């Protein structure tokens, strides 16, 4: 037992101090009829060496960044994570500490979170950020609950069909038992149908939820949508891609009252979708309904400036069922990663990342569109993702075949959008090279590539 200290001598000495005969006696408050009378039926213990062999084996069965090239996006992105981010996040004092209840011995965490909040408010053009939630999807749902509470409109939530399908599902799940109706507005042409949207937003509508760039990669007419929401007295909730803000107008500038995002792109690996980073920022006037932890400045007894968790009266350990949310933790370690990432790339770096995504995804989109087999589905401008149709309607097979060559080609859309059953969503980040883009086109057209993903990786291209 490499993590247990107590030797049998220790145990004997401790039991003597307690005045107990055995460890078993310490459990006597548990009635014997409730006790498990056998060992747990789980696999036997493994030493570290065996564990590592086992885990390496499992890892080797997954296509991943070391043996495959991915064009998958849809809310989880293969952006580059600088080594300095790992170096900071692997500091014991960050990752083995807990919520900074004791500010005196937690100024490192508190300051880092304050910097995170500051970065997010600057990035979004909004006034206030909490210090993170679970992920983009649950952040969207929390924003919807916020809006319902603030507007005191329990009737309707309006969501564009071009919002990430799993975010929409999450919103629906969260409000399912609250008597709130979720109205989905179509996006047949790749962006939300504004006429339809206008028709369904009414004075019972607490909020409109729009993703921009949306799930299809398309830019929405966000300002118009925000106007529709505001005209009806509803709040505008904007789902954004933090990387896109290297080029695009900030949510606060196009009219979002609450902006939420998946922050994984900012220095956190994909990790099969979790753990990741829920970003939520809002206007000042909404602050008292903000869910999650926040850090603020203050001074200590000696008058020195310092940081502390604040506005805890919103929280569940004080207000219990009256709290703004049940969230009592945050994704501090990934907020830290985002803080380090944004500090490293700076304004020019974020612009570069965004521009590379834009240019390279456009190159691939045009190249696929110029083939006889594929065509782009939507006309709207896109940022780093696009929807492509396989005229031979064999998207699932294409994806499976490409995977055999080490190319993760795209996300089939039929499961969420039956009318797009012959389409897939393709994503290009700054990590993709021209050789990889060309190889993907080749493998999708011919079922094989001159060079497998492994070969490109070995060639460093």
């Amino acid at each position: 037992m490499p993590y247990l200290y107590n030797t049998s001598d220790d145990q004997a000495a401790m039991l003597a101090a307690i005045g107990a005969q055995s460890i078993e006696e310490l459990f006597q408050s548990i009635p014997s009829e409730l006790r498990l009378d056998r060992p747990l039926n789980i696999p036997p213990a493994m030493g570290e060496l065996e564990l590592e062999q086992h885990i390496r084996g499992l890892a080797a069965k997954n296509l991943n960044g070391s043996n495959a090239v991915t064009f998958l996006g849809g809310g989880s992105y293969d952006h580059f994570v600088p080594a300095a981010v790992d170096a900071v996040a692997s500091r014991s004092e960050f990752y083995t500490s807990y919520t900074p209840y004791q500010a005196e011995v937690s100024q490192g965490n508190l300051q880092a979170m304050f910097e995170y909040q500051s970065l997010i408010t600057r990035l979004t053009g909004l006034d206030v950020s909490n210090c993170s939630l679970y992920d983009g999807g649950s952040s969207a749902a929390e924003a919807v609950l916020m809006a319902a509470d603030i507007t005191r409109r329990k009737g309707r939530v309006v969501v564009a069909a071009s919002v990430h399908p799993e975010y929409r599902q999450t919103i629906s799940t969260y409000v399912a038992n609250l008597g709130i109706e979720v109205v989905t507005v179509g996006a047949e042409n790749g962006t939300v149908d504004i006429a339809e949207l206008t028709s369904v937003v009414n004075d019972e509508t607490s909020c409109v939820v729009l993703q921009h760039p949306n799930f299809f990669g398309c830019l929405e007419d966000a300002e118009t949508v925000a106007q529709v929401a505001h005209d009806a007295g509803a709040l505008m909730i904007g789902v954004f891609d933090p990387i896109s803000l290297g080029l695009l107008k900030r949510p606060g500038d196009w009219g979002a009252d609450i902006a939420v995002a998946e922050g994984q792109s900012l220095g956190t690996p994909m990790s099969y979708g979790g753990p990741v980073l829920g970003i939520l920022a809002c206007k000042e006037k909404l602050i008292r309904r903000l869910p999650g932890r926040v850090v603020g400045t203050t001074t200590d007894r000696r008058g020195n400036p310092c940081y502390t968790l604040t506005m805890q009266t919103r929280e569940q350990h004080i207000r219990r069922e009256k709290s703004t949310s049940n969230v009592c933790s945050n994704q501090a370690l990934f907020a830290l990663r985002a803080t380090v990432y944004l500090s490293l790339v700076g304004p020019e770096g974020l612009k570069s990342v965004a521009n590379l995504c834009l240019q390279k995804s456009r190159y691939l989109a045009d190249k696929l569109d110029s083939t006889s087999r594929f065509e782009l589905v939507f006309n709207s401008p896109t940022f780093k993702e696009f929807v492509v149709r396989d005229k031979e309607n064999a998207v699932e097979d294409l994806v499976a075949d490409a995977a055999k060559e080490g190319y993760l080609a795209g996300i089939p859309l039929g499961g969420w959008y039956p009318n797009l059953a012959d389409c897939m969503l393709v994503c290009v980040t700054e990590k993709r090279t021209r050789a990889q883009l060309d190889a993907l086109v080749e493998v999708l057209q011919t079922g094989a590539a001159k060079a497998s993903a492994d070969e490109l990786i070995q060639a460093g291209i």
Partner: protein
Amino acid sequence: RDTKLIFDLSRPGCRGAVLPECDVPAADVTSLLPASALAESSPELPEVTEPQVIRHFMNLSQLNMSVDTHFYPLGSCTMKYNPKRNERAAAMPGFAEVHPYQPDETKQGMLEMLFGMQEMLKEISGLEACSLQPAAGAHGELTALLVAAAYFNDFGENRKKVLVPDNAHGTNPASAAMAGFESVTVKTNIDGGVDMEDFHSKLDDDIAVFMITNPNTVGIFESHMRELADAVHARGGLIYLDGANMNAILGVTRPGDFGADMQHYNPHKTFSGPHGGGGPGAGPICVVEKLATYLPGPVVEQGECPDNAGQTYYSLETPAKSIGKMRAFFGNTGVLLRAYCYIRTHGPDGLRAVSDNAVLNANYLLSLVKDFLPVPQGGRCMHEFVASASKLKAERGISAMDIAKRLLDFGFHAPTVYFPLTVKEAIMIEPTETESKETLDAFAETLRTIVGEDADLLHEAPHSTDISRPNEVAAARNPCLSCM
């Protein structure tokens, strides 16, 4: 004390990262995107170099106490050692660099691990189905309550009442409210257990769920657990077990065996996931068979390979009557992987030894401190106990907070204070099994010293830390949550 923010280090023209030149023909951005969508200026980020970033955050890190550097007896949080082998596993590209929408056949190792996790959690809880999706304990609570709501709705029942003991975690009533239930508080008695009279008086046919923490937040196993569960079940209600305190009972007793229909786990507590300064955690839930169909999706199923009969194959399925999704993607896989490593490291005997030693350590520490720091509910305890400074407060003006802050001066993180609300001047101490007798002795000795110290000295504590006590009232009155 250097209090510079990363923004204060910014100087125009400094760069911490250089991105590659564009290797495809590049068009002008304005020809690709509408002008109305473009930002008018650069993002307002600091301009700093990599060495500046590193030194800034390395120095910040040293301002924190942490499990790796200090004893951290934060009650209810199970701040046990975070094994390094788990971190190594989670960093492997074969886990860290996997996309959630990869085809199943390209992630069989990931699914195998997750399936194994589902199975092990089911066995440890004695329940029949598992969803790994929730992202934290409180998220698991909410998920389970939505599952309960879906179950009742499915049978046309509109039960609204959720019973919650007054010493429960605040997230319990908060989750109940979020899920659309009415939370009703049940009193606990002087021993820390549910007041059965109050419980029976509040139990009626409107009960949906009784949320119970067992062992409870004062570190006591609910002696009337079976009676409570039977009574709730008799009314058609469900029992929810708040799994925060699972570290006390691994392999000793199982929630499913003592009446729970649903429970969440905190893998970052019980199964050693690092707490990360506040997160991430995870909050997988287990439920009885009849609730399985309502679980959020997807879950991992084990079957045969479509292309290769006889070979095990894992796939993702969404239960038939699923409540939907509680978040995007599968779940907090990285946290679950660490927990998986932890459980596989221990095996059945090891997990039992964890609880044995967690309970032994807590009782030992209890025996050392109870004479000078009263523990209202504790002759014996499970994995933690709650002491009270109310006598010290009344007699000498020394509060739980004073003691907590003074401990920092001696190189110990403070216990949880002022929780649960049912104990006045509560000091909630959870040593965990990964601390040595020597550390417990030193901690108890320090507590003894502190309670004998001058009250004014304690009011002013801590004295040797980076900052002294922050003015929290001022912080909350005029919240300053970002720098200009």
